[in-house]
């Protein structure tokens, strides 16, 4: 081979390697950007779920009220009514399961107030918080756990 041919081959080889490195770089960039967007979306969903533990006890549809005064607790008498219309709350709750589990004084009862589970999901996260509940049956205040399961 002449010196000129060698230089042409050398140039082609350099361009080839440059293109390969560029393609790999672009693929990495694309993958990292996609992962970044997915991670941001997950963070946002997590933030929304965390917010629900303070939002649900303050919902007028569920919270206790006595003589026009608002009390910080969930009225068990309102749960059955809320459950009937809970599908209309998809915009607020999304794909989640919201359970109120009575833990004190004893006879543990679970009340599922919202349930919308996606057909396919990778994992399930659970967040819980204590909560005061009012039982109109025996006119007493009890302690429950508000459990929010969210799927992604």
């Amino acid at each position: 081979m002449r010196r000129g041919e060698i230089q042409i081959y050398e140039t082609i080889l350099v361009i080839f390697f440059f293109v390969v490195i560029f393609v790999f770089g672009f693929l990495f960039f694309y993958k990292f950007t996609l992962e970044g967007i997915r991670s941001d979306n997950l963070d946002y969903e997590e933030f929304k779920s965390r917010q629900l533990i303070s939002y649900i006890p303050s919902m007028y549809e569920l919270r206790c009220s006595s003589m026009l005064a608002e009390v910080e607790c969930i009225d068990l008498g309102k749960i059955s009514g809320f459950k009937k219309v809970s599908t209309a709350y998809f915009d607020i709750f999304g794909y989640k399961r919201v359970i109120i589990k009575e833990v004190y004084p004893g006879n543990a009862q679970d009340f599922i107030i919202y349930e919308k589970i996606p057909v396919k999901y990778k994992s399930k996260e659970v967040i819980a918080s204590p909560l005061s509940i009012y039982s109109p049956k025996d006119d007493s205040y009890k302690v429950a756990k508000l459990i929010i399961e969210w799927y992604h």
Partner: protein
Amino acid sequence: MVSLKKGQTEIVGLVIVVIILVILALIFLKFYITGNGDKDSSVKSVQANNLVNAIKMVTMCNQNIGDAIIACCNNNDFCGRDACRLSIEEIKKIMDSSSEEIIYFEAKDNDDLCLSVNNDCNGVSSSINFIRNNDGEAQIQVKICSIK
């Protein structure tokens, strides 16, 4: 191609090392700043406030635990039993059943500690809740310490 002298080559090497160190420092800083600390403490703060609110409202002997705590601070009986002992037992039951974490509970009457459950810690505190009835008043607070 221009050949570099030995001194120049070393400077280029040094610059590359500095650039790599700066990049590593930036990556470390990104993970350090975006930690989970804030998120966890905000959730724990909501949990602590929900718990202290739930405790003070629980019905006991047709009254609530808040009345038992005030009776304890006044050294009175409640429900035919020693108010402090009864309050500690019931509050402990509530905390054990409603959370997986170690929780400290305290009740004060004008800055005098009259009731506490578990040991004090440097956890996330609830806001101070005032409870009052005809017999007096008390301030109650919980702190979420750590996982059991």
